[in-house]
């Protein structure tokens, strides 16, 4: 670091836990030299509710509503991961109709999660308008959820072995209508942001994480794809019938915040593509596999992970043959991606820290569990 003629001392600044751009209750201790960040430390745990402990004291089906409360902007993905993990232990598979519905709902959820990310991230950087627009589109998705399963946010949409609710009348038309409007709306966001010079200036070369760093820090999801690694669990290890869908994995080369923005926007478009294909695949049939009323998986363990909007979401479930899981470990993408904030923020300016925290797309409910 260049010596300044002023006798500067290191400044320690506390950002959060109550800070609007830490997306919840994240506390970041910043070591500053002037405006330059020389080190960060994240203090997490303010939202720790002991979800893993709760799991050990609930039956398998009873725990399902709790997983929605981890990543609450992508609760359907959480539910899917948990259901898949227990289904793996039980060695059952959801019937085809249930799988297609699961794909539709999780992809809509991916769009909703990315929309929220886009709105809040833009808001952090001073662009207020996109937030209102993304909320408008997200409302359509939440309305579909409300009609489908009765809840908007913490949906509890899936059950172990399939679905609880069958599709309501008009589901397909409604989703189709949403698919038709979301494309032009995403174009609108791009008009607002992609070419916007403030947006570009704030994001390019901010929070760079190359592919090597990503792997070392275990960073997954859009961050990894923005660094040029074409890796998506939906393609690499398909679950819930993703192998039948034709979609692309958007990647970029630089691994900076702007690339992550582009990747997420592209992912929304791909998600719409998947939803459209899935709508054509809906076929009549049962929605629930043969699962005993009392879920009692044989002794064993399984790790199942899915591509949640934020990265790899894994569930490691250990069964001791009783009705309650012996141990449920959640591998939260936000928690692990957040760890890389130190690498990304070191050497950048303090104003960029907001951009960096925003670009990771964390949800503190998932970080702290």
């Amino acid at each position, binding site marked *: 670091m260049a010596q300044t003629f002023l006798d500067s001392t290191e400044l320690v600044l506390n950002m959060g836990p109550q800070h609007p751009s830490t997306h919840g209750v994240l506390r970041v201790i910043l070591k500053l030299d002037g405006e330059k960040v020389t080190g960060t430390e994240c203090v997490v745990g303010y939202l720790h509710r002991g979800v893993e*402990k709760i799991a050990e004291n609930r039956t398998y089906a*009873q725990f399902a509503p709790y997983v929605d409360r981890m990543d609450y902007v992508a609760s359907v993905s959480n539910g899917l991961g948990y259901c898949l993990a227990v289904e*793996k232990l039980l060695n059952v598979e959801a019937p085809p109709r249930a799988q297609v519905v699961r794909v539709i709902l999780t992809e809509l959820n991916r769009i909703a999660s990315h929309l929220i990310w886009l709105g809040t991230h833009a808001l952090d950087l001073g662009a207020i308008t996109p937030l209102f627009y993304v909320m408008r589109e997200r409302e359509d998705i939440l309305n579909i959820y409300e009609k489908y399963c009765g809840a908007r946010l913490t949906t509890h949409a899936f059950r172990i072995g399939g679905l609880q609710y069958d599709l309501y009348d008009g589901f397909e038309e409604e989703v189709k209508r949403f698919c038709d409007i979301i494309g032009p709306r995403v174009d609108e966001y791009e008009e607002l942001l992609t070419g916007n010079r403030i947006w570009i200036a704030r994001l390019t070369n901010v929070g760079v994480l190359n592919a090597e760093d990503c792997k*070392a820090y275990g960073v997954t999801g859009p961050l990894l794809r923005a660094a040029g690694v074409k890796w998506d669990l939906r393609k*690499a290890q398909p679950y819930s019938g993703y192998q039948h869908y034709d979609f692309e994995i958007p990647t970029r080369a630089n691994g900076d915040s702007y690339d992550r923005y582009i990747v997420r926007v592209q992912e929304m478009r791909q998600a719409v593509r998947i939803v459209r294909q899935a709508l054509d695949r809906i076929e009549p049939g049962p929605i629930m596999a043969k699962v005993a*009323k009392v879920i009692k998986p044989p*002794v064993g363990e399984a*790790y199942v992970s899915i591509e949640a909007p934020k990265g790899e979401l894994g569930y490691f479930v250990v069964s001791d043959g009783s009705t309650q899981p012996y141990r449920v470990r959640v591998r939260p993408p936000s928690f692990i991606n957040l760890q890389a904030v130190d690498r990304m923020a070191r050497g950048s300016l303090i104003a960029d820290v907001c951009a960096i925290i925003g670009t990771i797309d964390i949800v503190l409910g998932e970080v702290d569990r």
Partner: protein
Amino acid sequence: MADPQNAEAKPKPAAAPPAAPKAPASMAATPWEDELTRRLAEQYPDQITEFSTYLGQSFLVAKPAAVVSIVEFLKLEADFDYLADLTAVDYPKRSERFDLVYILYSFARNERIRIKTRIADGEKIESVVGVHLTANWLEREVYDMFGIEFANHPDLKRILMPDGWEGHPLRKDYGILQMDNRWVKENLGIESGQ
């Protein structure tokens, strides 16, 4: 609405179906053998005690002293360059109380394996932060939740629970309503968080 698909409530005993054949008390895993296990067995003849597959997921059981070296070997020689997760499972009745589980993934092979090792309460295990940076927070979480200490960890302290908290919540002997009353009283000024 009355579909009780997911009710875990048992119907009355009289209506219960005849008991299913008793499930085995241990995991019905099958041996795992391929080119990788041969290399590993050659490299670590006495350190790895088991190669198994359960539900199509492969895992190996190793001795704690060899874990870091195995993880490093897998990273350098077999492309397992991504530590997906690191966690622990508590079996209080066993003499070696904890199972440490390392979940590794290889981008090149598109393969996932688990390394399991057993350690006793109070025993220290070497940290893998030197091999995978992501293990930093994961090991801190394991320390926080189970009280397993990692030697040579750069910054081993609690991560989710507050710093002065006593007890490790994910141990099986820690009750679900239990808390550190002293901490709660000192820091929150209330008698109990319940």
